[in-house]
């Protein structure tokens, strides 16, 4: 066995997958998983656990895998994570567990993400489910939002025996997992739906089409008998650049583009939702969201460019996504920044005027600050522009809830350990608190808040 190199994972051929929406990565089978797991040293003082935001006992679950005991491995993961099939697919492992793995010093770190994914998928295929609680606690808790933060918080509270109701604004649960991250990276029917069903099977109720702040206010929820509320309402409104031409037809936020494709299934023949299928698509931004939008456009048949103002090294997306995007043929225009969107007389996009950038001194984030090179303007032809520049908080909940503090950016203020907000009985976590972050951090926050709510409700009884 080659201990320095990981067992390669099977993937769809780039040429084939660039034309379909099926999952790119095929994952390990049991033999591959066992073989990879054997590379793990089982460190006593395992660094990988420190790198995991929900502190999964990684050497222990991998230890079970070595013996081929997948059910036991799943039980270990389930103690810490309620969405392992999702996390195994979308966590930035290279900067978390795998980034800390001892094996990584000389050679490849253990493929912890792929092993987690294998274990969770195996459990699904073999009907292994988390166990519902034996005893019920006669207290109602409301959870706002059904993204990873809300689902985790709801799942943990239900396991403790609470009566939990999730309020979700959209017509389907899952948050970014259903409307943001595309099918080819995170299958909806087989993975996301099943993970959600697992949470609901614990007795959690789900009220769709309910916008808290509009359909019902937080104070009403307390009147309806809920004793605590968790806010996991996500990152919010898409940002635009504020450059000329941005309101032209053919300019979309990544959120709109991805929602049309993922939630409304515009790529599927049976859907009635239209989506622009451009000839030449320019995606502005360099995060996971930008990669997803670019790879979606590519699959819809367009020549696709990523326009990013810093260099490759600073791309905030997961390394695997950048790698996949390149393999599939997405063109990267790095150190490039748009200054204007060019339009036809009828108001449709015809191109994008950019300026070349160079990297100057490091800024507050530690990344070198990009600055425009004078006189370097040039035009890129495009009929569709997708803006993927991050989000700013949605004021719907904060503006309709008295006594709920937000910070200067408009994010809800909540402490990390328990998710406590400034309002009694109200807890918060996930992107609504941190701004756009990651699935696993949102889960971690949901978990912390579940603990906080449990302590709060127990304290109330005394």
């Amino acid at each position, binding site marked *: 066995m080659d201990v320095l190199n990981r067992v390669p994972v099977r993937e769809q051929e780039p040429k084939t997958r660039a034309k379909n929406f099926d999952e790119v990565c095929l994952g390990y089978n049991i033999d591959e998983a066992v073989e990879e797991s054997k590379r793990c040293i089982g460190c006593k003082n395992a660094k990988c656990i420190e790198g995991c935001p929900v502190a999964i006992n990684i050497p222990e679950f991998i230890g079970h895998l070595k013996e081929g005991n997948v059910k036991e491995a799943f039980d270990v993961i389930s103690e810490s994570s309620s969405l392992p099939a999702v996390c195994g697919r979308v966590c930035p492992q290279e900067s978390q567990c795998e980034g800390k793995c001892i094996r990584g010093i000389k050679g490849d770190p253990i493929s912890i993400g792929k092993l987690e994914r294998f274990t969770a998928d195996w459990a699904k295929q073999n009907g292994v489910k988390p166990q519902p609680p034996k005893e019920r606690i006669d207290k109602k808790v409301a959870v706002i939002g059904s993204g990873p933060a809300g689902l985790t918080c709801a799942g943990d509270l239900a396991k403790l025996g609470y009566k939990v109701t999730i309020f979700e*604004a*959209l*017509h389907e649960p899952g948050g970014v997992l259903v*409307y943001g991250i595309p099918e080819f990276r995170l299958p909806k029917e087989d993975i996301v739906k099943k993970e959600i069903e697992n949470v609901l099977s614990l007795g959690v109720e789900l009220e*769709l*089409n*309910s*916008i808290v702040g*509009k*359909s*019902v*206010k937080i104070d009403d929820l307390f009147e309806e008998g809920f004793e605590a509320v968790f806010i996991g309402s*996500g990152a*919010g*409104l*898409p940002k*635009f650049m*504020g450059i000329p031409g*941005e*309101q*032209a*037809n053919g300019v*979309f*936020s990544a*959120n*709109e583009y991805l*929602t*049309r494709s993922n939630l*409304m*299934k*515009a*790529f599927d*023949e*049976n*859907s*009635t*939702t*239209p*989506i*622009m*299928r*451009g*000839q030449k698509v320019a995606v502005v931004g360099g995060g996971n969201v930008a990669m997803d939008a670019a790879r979606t456009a590519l699959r*819809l*048949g367009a020549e696709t460019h990523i326009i990013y103002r810093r260099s490759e090294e600073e791309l905030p997306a997961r390394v695997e996504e950048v790698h996949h995007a390149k393999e599939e043929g997405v063109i990267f225009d790095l150190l490039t920044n748009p200054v204007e969107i060019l339009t036809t007389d*009828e*108001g*449709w996009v015809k191109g994008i005027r950019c300026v070349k950038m160079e990297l100057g001194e490091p800024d507050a984030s530690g990344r070198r600050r990009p600055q425009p090179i004078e006189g370097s303007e040039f035009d890129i032809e495009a*009929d569709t522009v997708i803006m993927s520049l991050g989000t700013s908080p*949605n*004021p*719907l909940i904060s503006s309709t809830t008295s006594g709920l503090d937000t910070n200067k950016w408009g994010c809800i203020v909540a402490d990390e350990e328990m998710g406590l907000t400034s309002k009694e009985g109200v807890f918060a976590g996930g992107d609504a608190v941190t701004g756009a972050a990651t699935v696993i951090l949102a889960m971690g926050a949901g978990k912390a808040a579940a603990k906080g709510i449990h302590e709060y409700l127990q304290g109330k009884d005394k």
Partner: protein
Amino acid sequence: MYKIIRDEKLTDNIYLMEIEAPRVAKNCLPGQFIILRSHSKGERIPLTICDYSKERGTVTIVFQIVGAGTEFLANLKAGDSVQDFVGPLGRPSELTDMPLSELKNKKILFVAGGVGTAPVYPQVKWLNERGVMADVIVGSKTKDLLIMEDMMKEVAGGLYITTDDGSYGDHGMVTNSIQKLVDSGKKYDVCIAIGPMIMMKFVCKLTKELDMPTVVSLNPIMVDGTGMCGACRVTVDGEVKFACVDGPEFDGHKVDFDQAMKRQQLYKTNEGRAFLKAKEGDTHHGGCGNCGGDQ
């Protein structure tokens, strides 16, 4: 699922439905809208709240068939259900925010165009219930397309109907009717215009000359209606606003109508539809209501 309690065909292609949605009915005010999906594969269709009953827990909508989504909806009957019904969305009309004492002194003119009569109705009714009688101009292409005349008569102060072809009421556009009322010595503190984008644009042009503050209700293309996607963005006073959370009502004199009209074409006009048909390739599978791709 949300049950349809009552359905009524108002004209050839305009329908009314009363739908059971207690949470929406309990919390809504005039000026707000809902989004519905008829079935599990359907579009999210934004529609203004036309009436509501907190007692019955119902919301009434009035819609015109313009494409596949609204056509499917029109075929549903009382007793059927729609899959999803979410709201109330957007901000209520500013009038509902005003202290009653102030409101009582206001002279208010509503201008409704076509199916825009429906969203005007709850505002006029709300004012009527508070003893404020507002004047209402209703414009319609022709007599047969006129809707809700009797309902409106019951709640309005003066009701002035005009048709483009003169087949009923006055002959001409709503802007003529506004001018006529003003010429006859009427004074208004505020005008609220709801109808096709082009109508609102011309009403605003006139009321600006007349120095009459004007509120319009915009209906850009929407997806989620909660501020998540940015599809509904419009420029007001040089600033980008999301109609679903910042609106749908805006100061009409500050709206960039030309831009809003261009943006609405994206999925709407014949040109936009034809363009999309070409651009969307085989992701265009009907939905434009024009190409027959869904049959």
